[in-house]
């Protein structure tokens, strides 16, 4: 990957968009415009932005309930995401999904899944379909360190490796699954080693440094497109905020949080590329976010008569 100021600008802007967008979400949550669970990506922006940079519009993404970052980085319109969280019909899932279930066919964004590890088998299947159809595509699957303990992680990695599927696994290891530290949940805390035990090409990278992530993702995609089967990247990262809006954060030290905040991906990137025009992006993004909020506010509610619509496909669809 050739790193240059243009790319640094692009990365910064996308990360900033996620950061500011989510800060606005918190505000909207306090105002009770957004409800349900709201899981923030703040602190982890380098992962989604770095990975998405390696993809083309043909590639597919499966993410978790902590997926605003992925959706924004992928190009799902902020308006539609905000409207979704407002529960409006203009939302990317017509208000049926909310924060945890952003979907967008246009950008091949397949959600937004709220069952930990539940998205991995789907991603495997998508990659299988690409292999069968001989399509030159990659499927990227994001999940947290918590997902690693689930049986579906194991089953999915095995299938992907066994069948040499074109899939990129991105583990966002932020050290905690809700309030439970990784050391309490895994006998082997180096997740990339676990992945390697399936004979998957696997590595652990600094997930706070977007350049490192982007580089790793680009190399991974190239390998995958060469038909060498799946690649697994464990990104070491940290969520700066609580798990969700209902979390008292009793399980971690303030100092630990402070130490990680020094690795803020935005700050780090700016340190490396001092030419980034932060002010310009702050202004642009403020406008985008204001517009998203306005769009969401002005959105309309799905008619209750249509509640049962989409339980099954309309007749005639195949």
């Amino acid at each position, binding site marked *: 990957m050739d790193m240059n100021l243009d790319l640094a600008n692009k990365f910064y802007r996308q990360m900033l968009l996620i950061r500011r967008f989510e800060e606005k979400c918190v505000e909207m949550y306090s105002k009770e415009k957004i409800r349900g669970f709201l899981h923030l990506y703040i602190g982890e922006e380098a992962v989604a932005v770095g990975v998405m940079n390696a993809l083309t519009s043909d590639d597919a993404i499966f993410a978790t309930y902590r997926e605003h970052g992925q959706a924004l980085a992928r190009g799902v319109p902020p308006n539609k995401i905000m409207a979704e969280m407002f529960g409006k019909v203009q939302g990317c899932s017509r208000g049926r999904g909310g924060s945890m279930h952003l979907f967008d066919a246009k950008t091949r964004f397949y959600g937004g899944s709220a069952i930990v590890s539940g998205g991995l088998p789907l991603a495997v*299947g998508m990659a299988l379909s690409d292999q069968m159809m001989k399509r030159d595509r990659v499927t990227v699957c994001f999940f947290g360190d918590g997902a690693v303990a689930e049986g579906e992680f194991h089953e999915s990695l095995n299938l992907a490796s066994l069948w040499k599927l074109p899939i990129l696994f991105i583990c966002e290891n932020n050290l905690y699954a809700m309030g439970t530290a990784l050391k309490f949940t895994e006998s082997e805390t180096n997740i990339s080693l676990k992945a390697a035990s399936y004979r998957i090409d696997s590595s652990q990278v600094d997930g706070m440094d977007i350049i490192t992530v982007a580089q790793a993702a680009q190399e991974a995609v190239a390998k995958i497109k060469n038909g060498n089967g799946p690649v697994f990247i464990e990104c070491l990262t940290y969520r700066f905020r609580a798990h969700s809006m209902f979390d008292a954060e009793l399980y971690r030290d303030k100092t630990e949080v402070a130490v990680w905040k020094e690795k803020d991906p935005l700050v780090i990137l700016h340190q490396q590329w001092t030419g980034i025009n932060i002010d310009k992006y702050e202004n642009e993004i403020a406008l985008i976010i204001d517009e998203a909020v306005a769009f969401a506010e002005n959105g309309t509610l799905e008619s209750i008569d249509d509640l049962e619509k989409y339980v099954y496909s309309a007749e005639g669809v195949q």
Partner: protein
Amino acid sequence: MNSIITYREAVRQALREAMEQDERVFLMGEDVGHYGGSYAVSMGFLALFGPQRIIDTPLSESAFTGAGIGAALGGMRPIVEIMTVNFSLLALDQIMNNAATLLHMSGGQFNVPLVIRMATGGGKQLAAQHSHSLEGWYAHIPGLKVLTPATIQDAYNMLGLALRDPDPVLIFENSMLYNTKGVLDPQIQPLMIGKARVQRAGKDLTILTYGISLFKSLEAASALMKEGIDVEVIDLRSLRPLDDETIMKSVAKTHRVLIVDEGWKSGSISAEIMARINEQAFYELDAPMQRVCTVEVPIPYAAHLEQAALPQAEKIIAMAKKIMEKQ
């Protein structure tokens, strides 16, 4: 051209034709390839279609069912074979939380044209962990369709219907039926998903049933006829959606109802049918509805206990007579 074939052969033929006609169709599951299918349904298909389309999976019910969903999202028409319903419990999260919800949750963007076939039912002395009849239980889940082919014709037709459906369809094949024989007419226009079939017309009592119990019910109906009780037997065929129209029409004719189903009694599909008849045709009833279901025990191994647990023609006959006694 009509032929007399086994249920197994009917499913085989439907599978083979579907794979020949549509490149997007493939079969995936445990032992579908080298072994030939645990009930020999896909015997020889590996040689015929190759390992890309007849995929032997590891024992990973959750992941390969989920992979079926993913492949369906990717434009394929996967047929996932879960060897028996007993193992589908391991895949329930994928079935309920993904297959059944994706379309709605995505605001209509992503439908899941997935077919899941599984063997179901007791009767082979396979004991508590291998004898479940959960098709009625699965019918609780919105977003799914649940089919229960009983006849040779349906064993053949339903696979095609399911593959043409844009949404996830579960097909339950009772393992006791694979060796049964009957007529197949491949030209016949298939009866749609969601339609029940009057398998035997009668005027005194309606038996609503599906799957293997259809045959036990027909046997009972013949015996009852000799005693002057003229039973109408309806093959529900589809447990979700249920064909309320056909059910209520029959109730309006006979005014007496017996439901026969191989699920455990409490919370069975029989209960749902009773609830609907009560709601939609209460004033048509001349007597309390009754049901013959499986006794609420983990199915025991010993033949006499297992048979005592399952619905049987004798129990159906006895229950039918009890219903007829009421004024």
